[in-house]
């Protein structure tokens, strides 16, 4: 018996010895990996007076922290702290950033920006050349920047980007002197100032970028001009931002350090917030999952703000059934948006009865186009549609509703499926697919009804309407087009009078809504929770948060 115990003990001992050995291995690896830093400690408690740290999460490793190469929100979220454009957004409105002031010509085509004495994180001055260099980088076809199209508002940019002209001199970007930049536009663009706050228009430090083409892949070679510097980057693990002492407005930056971990799982993000490991949770610093909303609401800790985006179902208008506008109308009208929002999405979203969110200037309310859950109207349209298709009973319709794999999309689709089945008697099959397979189906018009969302890059109605200006537009995905609509949109780009432009866009909205190539469902809201010692952290209606204004008072 004694021997038995001894043997068991030996085995356990051996096991623990090996485990401990493993332990050292683990720690070595992590410190090795962080490479550039000496500080891997994350506890906030031991920071002595004056240190203000904020702990956040983002959903993934930022694929690219190069302003001109980035395409995704995670990268833009990080860069909104490390970089600053000519203008910067404050509560959704453009205010001077690197530019101290600007002048706009009377024809609204030429902007002259005067730069302030801003500095890069390496101490060198931010010059007009840095902007021109960055924009040239974005437009140069050799760099294949996926977001270059956003610069097409600038004169000659499209031709240069598509290779029809080869000299950047023909693009309307002119460096007058190191502190003056003159930009000429193709046509009046009311949201151009907003665009200069967008990531693709951030400057990059010319000397650094020329010396090291991979400057943006590691923290120790990273140079920015924002309120914070990237001080540590453990790939796929975490990022640390520290206050940039060289920043022109450094006196007004309150935080000294921001720790950002990359956490993909929404459940984990929530658990981290609840256990106090992070101080804020909500787009774009993580996301609140559907299942948590009700609980947070009952705890009265959930904040809800407007978000300039729309969730919609697209109809494939080249499909044998869906080409019938009455069927599309019936389906659109028979969605119970209020019920969906109350019971399923729960985020106090606004039912979408138009194409442009209410938060967009001039598009206050879209009542009048159609009513939510209008079953009478839907049935009338359905009968008409069935007759046109030569069918007698709605149960003869078998439709396929597609969405990309996600719990939220699946729940919404099941709710709407049940509604269509119950109220119209139509059979609907759900089909979910992996994201890329799904995108491929949409763009090759191999679907009947498909879900998509659209979040504006700039808060203007044009951003929501432009994609339907032709059937060939890569973002259209419905095969729908309408000559009058196309013309109205074209006119709006050259109209200099804001009120007249708004009228044109509203008319366009009326046309597209009457033909139902898409069924608008709801306008997004942004949900977030924040610890009460954090102030100044509220997303604007594009979802941006300026960490410059955030303060922590413990």
């Amino acid at each position, binding site marked *: 018996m004694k021997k038995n115990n001894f043997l068991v003990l030996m*085995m356990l001992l051996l096991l623990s010895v090996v485990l401990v050995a493993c332990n050292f291995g683990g720690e070595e*690896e*992590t410190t090795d990996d962080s490479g550039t830093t000496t500080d891997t400690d994350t506890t906030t408690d031991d920071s002595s007076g004056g240190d203000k740290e904020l702990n956040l999460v983002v959903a993934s490793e930022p694929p690219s922290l190069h302003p001109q190469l980035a395409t995704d929100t995670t990268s833009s979220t990080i860069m909104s702290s490390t970089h600053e454009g000519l203008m910067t957004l404050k509560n959704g409105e453009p205010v001077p950033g690197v530019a101290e002031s600007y002048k706009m010509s009377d024809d609204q085509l030429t902007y002259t920006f005067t730069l302030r004495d801003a500095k890069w994180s390496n101490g060198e001055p931010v010059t007009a050349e840095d902007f021109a260099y960055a924009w040239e980088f974005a437009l140069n076809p050799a760099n294949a920047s996926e977001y270059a199209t956003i610069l097409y508002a600038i004169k000659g940019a499209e031709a240069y980007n598509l290779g029809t002209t080869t000299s950047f001199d023909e693009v309307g970007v002119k460096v007058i002197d190191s502190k003056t930049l003159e930009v000429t536009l193709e046509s009046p663009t009311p949201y151009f100032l907003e665009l200069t706050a967008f990531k693709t228009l951030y400057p990059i430090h010319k000397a650094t970028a020329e010396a090291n083409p991979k400057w943006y892949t590691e923290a120790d070679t990273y140079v920015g001009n924002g309120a914070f510097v990237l001080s540590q980057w453990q790939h796929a693990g975490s990022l640390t931002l520290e206050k940039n002492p060289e920043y022109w407005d450094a006196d007004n930056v309150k935080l000294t350090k921001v720790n950002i971990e990359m956490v993909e799982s929404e459940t984990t993000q929530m658990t981290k917030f609840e256990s106090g490991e992070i101080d804020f949770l909500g787009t774009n610093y993580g996301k609140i999952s559907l299942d948590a909303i009700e609980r947070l609401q009952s705890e009265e800790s959930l904040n809800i703000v407007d978000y300039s985006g729309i969730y919609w179902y697209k109809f494939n208008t080249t499909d044998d059934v869906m080409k019938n506008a009455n069927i599309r109308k019936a389906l659109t009208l028979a969605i119970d948006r209020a019920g969906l929002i109350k019971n399923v999405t729960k985020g106090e979203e606004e039912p979408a009865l138009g194409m442009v969110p209410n938060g967009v200037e001039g598009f206050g309310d879209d009542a009048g186009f159609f009513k939510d859950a209008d079953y009478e109207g839907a049935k009338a349209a359905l009968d008409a549609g069935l007759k046109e298709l030569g069918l007698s009973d709605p149960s003869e319709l078998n439709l396929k509703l597609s969405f990309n794999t996600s719990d939220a999309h699946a729940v919404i689709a099941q709710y709407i499926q049940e509604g269509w089945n119950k109220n119209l008697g139509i059979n609907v099959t759900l089909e979910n697919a992996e994201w*890329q397979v799904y995108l491929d189906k949409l763009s090759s018009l191999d679907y009947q009804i498909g879900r998509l969302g659209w979040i504006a890059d700039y808060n203007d109605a044009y951003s929501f309407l432009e994609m339907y200006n032709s059937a060939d537009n890569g973002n259209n995905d419905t095969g729908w087009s309408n000559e009058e609509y196309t013309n109205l949109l074209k006119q709006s780009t050259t109209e200099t009078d804001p009120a007249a432009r708004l009228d044109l866009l509203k008319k366009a909205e009326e046309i597209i809504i009457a033909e139902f190539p898409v069924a608008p469902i709801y306008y997004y809201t942004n949900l977030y929770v924040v610890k009460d010692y954090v102030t100044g952290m509220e997303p604007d209606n594009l979802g941006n948060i300026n960490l410059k204004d955030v303060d922590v008072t413990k």
Partner: protein
Amino acid sequence: MLQYIVKRLVYILLALFLIITATFFLMRLAPGSPFASERDFPPQIEEQLNAKYGLDNPWYIQYKDYLIDSVTFDFGESMKYKGRSTNDIIAESFPISLTLGMQAMLIAIGFGILLGVISALYHNKAPDYVSTIIAVLGISVPSFILAGLLQYYLAYEFKIFPVSGWKGYVYSILPSLAIAFTHMGFISKLTRSSMLEQNNSEYVKMARAKGLSKWKVVFKHSLRNALLPVVTYLGPLAAGVITGSFIIEQIFAIPGLGRHFVTSITNRDYTVIMGTTVFYSIILLFAVFIVDILYSIIDPRIKLKGAKKS
């Protein structure tokens, strides 16, 4: 023996070639592209992107390129993570998964075999039932549910461990347990079943009759023979575990290699798909190879063909 090893290596190369070929065609056939997104961009830019990453070449050129990449083990730049080389991505994340995997394997093997031996020694008695319950729970509760439960109770409710991250030893405990539990259950069941077979063999009865204690018989005789199926299972398992588990790394936000196997595919990041696949394949093929060699050590009756043809 040497002849056998050489022969085996040839087969490993052949298998590797097949894997690369199959992976290449599968990934090129799958719809989507590394640059696809909700937001479309002009076809000219797509052409430029394709040209930049060599995706405009005919398939046989691309295929040849991947074969050369695999031979030189240099897979080039990731198409999703701009400016980052596939080799760097693997080199940075593999040590993390390796540490975690080794720890999980030790727990799984140690406790798995222990439970299995206890079960077999006290066949159909209380200790057998207890360890069987633990083992079956391990098998039937998948790692993602276990991970969620561990995270919720031990990290959130009782605050014993951090919720997620990878900043020191304490961060590795919950994920290791979550990975280990399923495998522990299975190893224990496998050990139990083959131990039972051994326990009824003549030589074990003989040893017991000679007055050796139960446990001594286990360690001196039966365990060695009983481990054969366990070793078979452990080879491929080890290859899988040390290269990381996607779900566990996702839940505990660990920057390991396991995530890249899945995200590279959902991103259609072709270079990373090929890099991680080749890397994993090499580990797997050698793990299976080592298992075969271990067979002849554990059970000398197993003769590796080619070693000595009698």
